[in-house]
C-alpha cells in the first residue's frame, strides 16, 4: 500500500467506526435526551471484550500481557459478544437516570463514571493489562493478504455501518423515535401518559451501548491494540461535537458531523507533519479546534448544520394524509358516536357495568407536608363512576397537591388511594396512568418538538411500536395499528375543533391551544378517570365553552372526570358533584347549587 492509501484506509476506518458510535450516542443524547458522557467507556468495553474473546489464553504468551478470559472465539461471535457486553453496561449506566437528577448532574455523574472506569482499568493490571493496554489483538480479516486487507477492512466497516443504520432507523424514526423525543421534551408528561420512562431509558442505553460495543470491537480489531489512553473521557466530547455540529437528533447530520469532526480534525491532524519542535502542538491543536467548534455551534447554531427533521416532513411518514382525507369527519357532527370511538372500553367493559354503583376513586385521609407546611391534611373524598366531579377551593387549599397524590406524582405522607377497586397508593405514577387514572398539568406540558398530532398519537396506550422488540419487527407489525391510532387522534382533534393545527409544532401553539392539547392527550390514553388540573385557566371564553362541550360528550361515553377548577361558572355547568377543599381538608360536598346556599361555604370560598 502506498503512503496515501494507508492514510485513506485509516481515515475511512476511523470514520466508519466513529460513525457507528456517534449514531449510538445521538440515539441516546440527541433523540432520547440522555446526556451520556460515559459513552466512550462503552466503546472501550466493546474493544476490550473483542480483544479478550479473540485472544488466546493469557498464560499462553509467556507473561507478555495479562488479561481475563482469552477464549479464542471466532471473530463474528466476538463482535457480538462486544455488542452484548456494552449493551449490558449501557443499561447499567442507565441506572444513573433513576434518581431523575437535573440533566447536567446526570451528565456529570456519567462523566465521573467514565473517568472512574479509566482509573480502575489502568490500575488493575490483571483485568486487561492495566495502563499498558492490550496488544496483538487479532485482526478479523487476518486471513486476507496484507496488501488488500486495509481496503477489505474499510469495506467490512461500511457494510456494518449500513446494517447498523438499517436497525437504528427503526429506533430513531417512526413511532419509537417519536416516543423517545416525547420523553426528551418532557419526562413528567411522558410519565403522566403512562410511559415507563426508566425502562425506555435503559432500553435506549442498551441499544446505544450495543452500537458502542460494535464500534469498539471494529476499532480494536483494526488497530491491534487498545489501552486506557484510547478512551479518555475527552473522546466522548469528540463524538458529542460531531453530533452538535452535524445536527442533534438527525442521523444524516451525524454522518456529516463525523466526517468533519473526529475524522478530519482529531484523526486528520495526526497525519500533518510536525511543524514545530513541540510534539504536543498538533494533537492539542485538534482538541482546541474541536472545543472551539462546539462552542461556536452552541452559540450560533445549536441545532447543527442539518437540524432534526421538521414535524411536517415527519408527518408524511407517520400518517398518510391522503388516506385520512378520504375519511370524512362525519363524526364531527355527532359528538356522542365519535367519542364512543375515542374512549374505547379497555377490555373490561363487563366489569365496569357490574360495578356501576361503586365509586371509581376512593381517597381516604391523605396527608402531605412541604417543609413544615401542611398542604393536604387528611382529605377524604370519592369520585362516582361516570360523573364529572369538581374539586374547588381557595388558592393554597391543597387541591393540586391532592390531585398530585391521586395521580402518584406527589407521595402521600399518609392515607390510601383506591382506584377501580384496587389500592394504588404505592403504585408509580406511570402505572396508574396505564390502569386508566390519568392526569393533566396545570401548566401545559406539551412535547414541544412534536406536532399536535404526534403529541396525541404518542399517548396511545400499549402500542405495538412502544417496545424495542416490536419496533424491530417493522412497519408491517405496527403500521395498521398506527393508522388506527392516527385516525382516533384526528377524530379527537375534530371534537376539540383543532384539526387545522394537526401539523403544527406543539411548542408554537398558543397558550389556550396548549391547554386543549393537554386535555386531548389525556383522553388519548383511554383513561377511565381523567384528572384535569385547572384546564380552563387562561382559556378564552370560547375555548372554555369548547372544552366543556368536549368533557360532557366524553362523560356520555362513560369517562369519569375529576376537575380541579377555579372558574365557578364552568364548575356549575359541568360538575355533577362538587367537593370543596379548605386548608388541606374536604370542607363540604354537594351539588354546586346546594353549596351556593350554604353559609359556611360562602364564607370560606365564594365571597373570598
Amino acid at each position: 500500500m502506498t503512503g496515501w492509501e494507508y492514510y485513506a484506509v485509516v481515515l475511512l476506518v476511523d470514520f466508519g467506526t466513529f460513525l457507528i458510535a456517534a449514531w449510538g450516542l445521538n440515539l441516546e443524547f440527541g433523540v432520547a435526551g440522555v446526556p451520556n458522557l460515559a459513552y466512550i467507556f462503552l466503546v472501550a468495553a466493546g474493544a476490550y471484550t473483542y480483544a479478550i474473546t479473540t485472544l488466546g489464553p493469557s498464560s499462553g504468551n509467556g507473561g507478555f500481557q495479562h488479561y481475563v478470559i482469552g477464549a479464542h472465539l471466532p471473530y463474528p461471535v466476538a463482535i457480538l459478544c462486544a455488542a452484548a457486553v456494552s449493551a449490558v453496561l449501557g443499561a447499567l449506566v442507565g441506572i444513573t437516570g433513576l434518581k431523575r437528577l437535573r440533566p447536567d448532574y446526570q451528565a456529570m455523574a456519567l462523566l465521573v463514571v467514565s473517568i472512574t472506569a479509566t482509573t480502575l482499568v489502568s490500575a488493575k493490571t490483571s483485568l486487561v493489562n492495566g495502563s499498558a493496554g492490550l496488544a496483538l489483538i487479532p485482526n478479523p480479516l487476518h486471513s486476507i493478504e496484507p496488501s488488500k486487507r486495509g481496503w477489505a477492512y474499510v469495506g467490512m466497516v461500511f457494510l456494518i455501518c449500513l446494517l447498523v443504520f438499517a436497525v437504528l432507523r427503526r429506533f430513531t424514526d417512526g413511532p419509537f423515535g417519536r416516543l423517545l423525543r416525547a420523553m426528551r421534551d418532557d419526562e413528567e408528561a411522558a410519565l403522566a401518559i403512562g410511559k415507563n420512562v426508566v425502562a425506555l431509558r435503559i432500553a435506549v442505553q442498551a441499544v446505544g451501548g450495543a452500537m458502542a460495543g460494535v464500534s469498539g470491537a471494529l476499532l480494536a480489531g483494526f488497530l491491534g491494540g487498545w489501552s486506557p489512553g484510547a478512551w479518555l473521557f475527552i473522546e466522548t466530547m469528540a463524538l458529542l461535537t460531531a453530533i452538535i455540529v452535524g445536527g442533534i437528533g438527525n442521523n444524516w447530520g451525524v454522518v456529516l458531523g463525523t466526517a468533519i469532526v473526529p475524522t478530519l480534525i482529531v484523526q486528520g491532524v495526526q497525519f500533518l507533519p510536525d511543524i514545530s519542535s513541540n510534539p504536543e502542538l498538533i494533537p492539542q491543536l485538534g482538541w482546541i479546534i474541536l472545543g472551539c467548534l462546539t462552542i461556536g455551534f452552541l452559540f450560533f447554531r445549536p441545532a447543527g448544520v442539518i437540524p432534526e427533521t421538521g414535524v411536517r416532513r415527519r408527518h408524511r411518514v407517520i400518517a398518510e394524509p391522503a388516506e385520512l382525507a378520504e375519511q370524512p369527519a362525519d363524526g364531527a357532527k355527532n359528538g356522542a358516536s365519535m367519542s364512543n370511538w375515542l374512549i374505547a372500553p379497555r377490555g373490561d367493559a363487563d366489569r365496569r357495568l357490574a360495578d356501576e354503583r361503586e365509586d371509581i376513586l376512593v381517597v381516604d385521609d391523605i396527608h402531605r407536608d412541604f417543609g413544615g407546611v401542611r398542604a393536604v391534611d387528611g382529605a377524604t373524598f370519592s369520585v362516582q363512576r361516570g360523573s364529572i366531579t369538581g374539586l374547588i377551593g381557595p388558592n393554597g387549599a391543597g387541591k393540586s397537591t391532592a390531585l398530585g397524590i391521586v395521580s402518584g406524582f406527589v407521595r402521600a405522607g399518609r392515607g390510601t388511594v383506591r382506584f377501580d377497586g384496587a389500592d394504588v397508593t404505592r403504585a408509580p405514577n406511570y402505572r396508574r396512568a396505564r390502569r386508566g387514572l390519568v392526569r393533566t398539568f396545570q401548566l401545559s406540558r406539551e412535547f414541544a418538538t412534536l406536532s399536535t398530532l404526534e403529541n396525541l398519537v404518542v399517548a396511545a396506550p400499549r402500542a405495538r411500536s412502544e417496545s424495542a422488540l416490536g419496533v424491530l419487527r417493522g412497519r408491517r407489525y405496527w403500521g395498521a395499528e398506527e393508522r388506527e391510532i392516527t385516525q382516533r387522534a384526528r377524530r379527537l382533534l375534530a371534537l376539540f375543533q383543532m384539526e387545522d393545527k394537526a401539523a403544527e409544532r406543539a411548542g408554537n401553539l398558543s397558550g389556550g391551544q396548549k391547554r386543549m392539547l393537554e386535555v386531548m392527550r389525556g383522553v388519548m390514553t383511554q383513561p377511565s378517570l381523567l384528572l384535569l388540573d385547572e384546564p380552563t385557566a387562561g382559556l378564552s371564553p370560547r375555548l372554555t365553552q369548547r372544552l366543556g362541550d368536549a368533557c360532557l360528550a366524553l362523560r356520555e361515553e362513560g369517562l369519569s372526570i375529576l376537575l380541579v377548577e377555579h372558574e365557578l361558572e364552568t364548575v356549575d355547568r359541568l360538575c355533577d358533584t362538587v367537593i370543596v377543599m379548605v386548608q388541606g381538608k374536604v370542607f363540604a360536598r354537594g351539588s354546586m347549587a346546594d353549596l351556593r346556599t350554604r353559609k359556611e361555604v360562602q364564607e370560606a370560598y365564594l365571597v373570598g
Partner: protein
Amino acid sequence: MADASESGGKTALEVEGLTAGYGDIEIVHGIDLSVSEGSLVSVVGPNGAGKSTLLKAILGLVKVFDGSIRLDGHDVTRFPLEQLVRRGIGYVPQVDDVFETLRVHENLEMGGYLLDKPTRARRIEEVLEFFPVLAEHMRRYVGTMSGGERKMVAVGRALMTSPRVVIFDEPTAGLAPTLVQSVLEDQARALADRGKAVLLVEQRAHAALQLSDWAYVLVQGRVARSARAADVLSDPEMGEVFLGGAVKS
C-alpha cells in the same frame, strides 16, 4: 379625560405611551398611567392581559420598546430595578418575594442594604410598628412561615428604604381567602393612607377595586378603561366584558 391624580396629592409615578414585551414580542401597547401620593391605584384585567408585563416594564425587568416612565418628574425609563429602588420605589414581587433561607430580621436588614446602621435600626422599628406581629418572629426562617406572615416580611422588606412609591404584584396570589382582605386593606390601602403612592396589580379585581381610588382595566395589552375604582366596580358592562369571572370570585 379624567385623571388619576385628582384622587390624591402630587403625581409620583407617571407612565406615558409605554410599549414593552419579551424578545421581539410586544405584550403591552401604549400604556398611559399615573399614581399620585396618598392614593391606591389598581391595574386589573383578565388573565394574559399584560398586567404583570406592564409592571415589570416599569420596574426595568422587561424590555421597553417605546414610551417613558417618570418618577417625581425625573425620567427613569429603562432604569434597572436597583436604580429605581435607590430613587424611591419599593417593589413587592409576586409569591417569590422574600429570602426564604434567611431569617426575618436578616430579610429586613437586607431590605435596608443601602442604609447606614442607625438608620437601618430606626427603619426596622418603623416596620415593626406597622407590622407588630413580626416582632415575635424576628429570628424565624421566612421559609417556615405562613403565607400571611411571609407577605408581611416581603412588604416590610420593601418599606425599609422608605419608598415614596410602593408597587405590589398580585399580593394575594397563593394566599388563603381569609387573608386576602387583610393583605389588601392593612398593607396596600394602609400605605396609601400614610401618604405613599401605591400601584397594585391584582387578579382579584373585586376585592382590589373596593379599596382603590383609581382603576386601570387592561385588556389585551391596552388600557380599556381608566376611571374611579368605584365607577368601574358599579359598571355592569365592565364586570361582564373585561373582568369575567374575576369579579365574582
